[in-house]
């Protein structure tokens, strides 16, 4: 089945220690998104890629970076995690066709704990 996969499902890191979260997809979608979701809140968009074009949200801290080496993979790098960065991180994909975006499909998320 076509899907969005996130690894690891649970990640524990230390305050200030860089961490990388991974997302892969078999849907062949040209758009990939990263969201941060804190408990009982709606997801908050951090950034997205349309093909290789990176689009950062205005309020995303510089501490968060992303890489998309190919269509299938996208990474979220947190350079110096703080306690406030503990959250669920969701990856999503969608297909942009004829200039229009379509619905997003989400992965299961990675729960990040910062000690």
């Amino acid at each position: 089945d076509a899907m969005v996969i996130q690894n690891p499902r649970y990640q524990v890191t230390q305050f200030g220690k860089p961490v990388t979260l991974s997302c892969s997809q078999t849907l062949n979608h040209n758009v990939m998104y990263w969201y941060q979701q804190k408990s009982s809140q709606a997801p908050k968009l951090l950034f997205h890629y349309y093909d290789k074009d990176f689009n950062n949200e205005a309020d995303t801290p510089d501490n968060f970076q992303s890489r998309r080496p190919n269509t299938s993979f996208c990474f979220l790098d947190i350079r110096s995690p703080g306690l406030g960065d503990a959250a669920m991180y969701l990856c999503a994909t969608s297909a942009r066709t004829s200039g229009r975006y379509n619905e997003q499909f989400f992965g299961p998320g990675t729960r990040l704990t910062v000690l």
Partner: protein
Amino acid sequence: AQTVTQSQPEMSVQEAETVTLSCTYDTSENNYYLFWYKQPPSRQMILVIRQEAYKQQNATENRFSVNFQKAAKSFSLKISDSQLGDTAMYFCAFMSYSGNTGKLIFGQGTTLQVKP
């Protein structure tokens, strides 16, 4: 700017009964999508149903249907014959046709508990 409001933070329903979740939104655009996403306790967000604003007919997906009132900017979700597996947080979301990001604007979410 677009906004989405879900005014019911929590709801509960007895198994096999029907429940309606409310959602209102604000936009000056004429062409857009509306979605309901479900996020069970396992936390994977799943698309439940979508509605394109230019379509007058309300979308349905099995036990899930919407009441889309474009003039009133209302987009409620009806779940019929509720099942225990419907227990989840439900998010209403808006997406513009004309935007250059495909960004979803989410409501605050409604936690639905289905009771046996």
